[in-house]
């Protein structure tokens, strides 16, 4: 993203105004989409004010509902990174769902294959297995793009369907627990290898993983030479190639980290929520993650609050269904409206609507050039 490159060299005041604007436009878009959603539910006989009131109650209003929101936001943070990080290099990857499913499957397989190991080893290996498998899955998509020119959006999407087929094959066949009759699953995890809750909270450790991943990848993408090189690929591939960057490697490594994040989400889903790998892994977290990434404008730090917002919307879905008899897909409709409005608002980014100032022509930052030589 060229704007962020230029931002790094701007004065603190300009930087602040750019950050404020980058955040204010999505915030306005969110407000507009909520208003549109209010009209929509109004058409179906629900009172919009009451709907919003209940949505707030069901997401952030009580300690119980807030913990539910936190719990739901954890996988969203991780799957959002799966789209957000490659987007910094100009790749649109939508394979978070597949990476999550395979990450969960890997965690369940690890627990199945290491029955004699100590619980801590199993826990670490489950998360590592999820990271590795998810990373390889999305890394494959990026490698196909980098070395064969295969469209990464389509390939990552096809990989979603292939991952789900692998899940179905394994839980219906080789890894099936004979005791799981109605819902084919892998053998359940032993209680002592389940990843528990964060101290003092009713929220599992996935939240910590999500926060750590967001912060670490933010530092990686915005504060290191690697991240600078990656963003340069996103800004102009030709320029990156001409300055000697190994574009293909940057793409594959970034995609590995991105897919690893989604894989960890799957591992946590198995090791902290489901207790085994089954069809419940295919819950649409991967697709919601795409939305989170776009609202957060592919900034890993912004992914955190946006995940909370989307997690809150998800958490309030059940209440909407019970109180207003709206179909559970109401949440999906709101997500769709949000996504469309956010993309529409991109038009206004960088136009400096409020902060009147002449558009600054951004020359290549000097420090950046030195970085490029050393990279």
């Amino acid at each position, binding site marked *: 993203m060229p704007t962020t490159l230029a931002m790094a060299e701007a004065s603190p005041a300009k930087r602040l105004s750019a950050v404020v604007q980058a955040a204010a436009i999505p915030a306005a878009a969110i407000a507009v989409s909520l208003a549109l959603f209010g009209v929509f539910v109004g058409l179906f006989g629900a009172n919009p004010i009451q709907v919003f009131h209940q949505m707030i109650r069901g997401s952030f209003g009580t300690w119980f509902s807030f913990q539910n929101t936190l719990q739901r936001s954890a996988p969203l943070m991780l799957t959002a990174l799966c789209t957000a990080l490659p987007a910094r290099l100009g790749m*649109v990857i*939508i394979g978070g769902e597949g990476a999550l499913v395979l990450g969960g499957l890997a965690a369940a397989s690890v627990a199945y294959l290491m029955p004699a190991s100590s619980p801590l080893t199993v826990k670490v290996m489950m998360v590592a297995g999820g990271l590795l498998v998810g990373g390889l899955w999305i890394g494959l998509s990026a490698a*196909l793009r*980098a*070395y*064969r*020119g*295969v*469209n990464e*959006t*389509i*390939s990552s*999407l*096809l*990989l979603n*369907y*292939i991952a789900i*087929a*692998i899940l*179905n*094959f394994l839980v*219906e*066949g080789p890894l099936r627990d004979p005791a799981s009759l109605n819902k084919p699953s892998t053998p359940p995890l032993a209680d002592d290898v389940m990843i528990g809750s964060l101290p003092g909270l009713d929220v599992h450790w996935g939240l910590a993983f999500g926060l750590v991943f967001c912060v670490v990848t933010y530092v990686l993408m915005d504060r290191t030479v690697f991240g600078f090189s990656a963003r340069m690929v996103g800004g102009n591939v030709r320029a990156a190639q001409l300055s000697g960057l190994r574009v293909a490697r940057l793409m594959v490594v970034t995609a590995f980290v991105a897919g690893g994040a989604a894989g960890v989400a799957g591992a946590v889903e198995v090791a902290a929520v489901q207790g085994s790998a089954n069809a419940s892994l295919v819950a649409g977290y991967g*697709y919601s993650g*795409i*939305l989170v990434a*776009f609202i957060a404008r592919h900034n890993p730090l912004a992914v955190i609050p946006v995940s909370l917002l989307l997690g809150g919307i998800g958490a309030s879905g059940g209440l909407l269904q019970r109180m207003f008899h*709206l*179909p559970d*897909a*109401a*949440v*999906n*409709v*709101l*997500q*769709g*409206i949000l*996504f*469309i409005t*956010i*993309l*529409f608002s*991109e*038009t206004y*980014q*960088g136009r400096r609507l409020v902060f009147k100032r002449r558009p600054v022509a951004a020359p290549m930052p000097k420090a950046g050039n030195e970085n490029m030589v050393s990279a």
Partner: protein
Amino acid sequence: MTPELVADGTIMTGFWGVILAVLAGAIRISTPFLFVSLGECLTEKSGRINLGLEGTLVMGAMGGYGVSLYTGSPWLGVLAAGVLGIALGALHAWLCSRPKVNDIAVGIALMIFGVGLAFFLGKPLIKPSAPHLPAIPLGAWSSFPQVRAALNINILFVVGIGITLLVRWLLTRSRWGLVLRTVGESANSARAMGYDVNRVRLIATMCGGFLAGVGGSFLSLFYPGSWNEGLSSGQGLMAVALVIFAKWDPVRCLWASLLFGGASALGPALQSVGFNQGYYLFNAAPYVLTLVVMIATSSSERALAGQPAELRVAR
């Protein structure tokens, strides 16, 4: 796709049973592929990718089923599905015509929106049974029930073949097609010649949406022939890959759709003859096939044959 939908009364068994089931599936399952891929082909020829056709397909399936249920006429359902497709196509084109809005991202957004809206509005349609589209019993001469079932061809499939030829004629032989291809090859040249690029793309995307919506109505009004939330297994998205496979040629889209239909029928066909090993892996056959085809035909050095140049710039 559930197995019992394909295995209708298995008497003919063994190798020929599988072949017949795959051929029958090729004709039956290919129709939505054909319509969506023709729509996508038309849109992409104008220089834009519409990934939202999956949402259009599901909306078409829901809307077509609902209208068929309430009016009693499945053909009105098909028409309604097409009109919904036009609306979603217009939304896509309008959003993409704004500066700095990425067509791929808009496609993903419309996919989420279309599928969500269809599930929301379609809740009351899951139970009731709507009148179906009629079929032509071309297999009436045969004493084998499978042959009769396989040749029970829906009119929409025949219409699809007609539209294939029409789209090909439009693109290669008509003035309108020439303008469309100019816009897809070089928007600047088209602009210099005085054509309104956004308007041409709007029309192309709306036509593409119409076809995708009609393809969706086939799902709910003929095969599998009911409305539920698991109706589409990503046909709308695979159509995008299929267009690449077909090198942006409508007639090749037809062959590719038949191939994909056959691949989709492989798993259920094998299961119907008692070959259960890896049933779920065979379900992945169309996706693996798409991926393999894309790997085989893509190249990092040269552009794909037949690809509109504006799509290359967009990448």
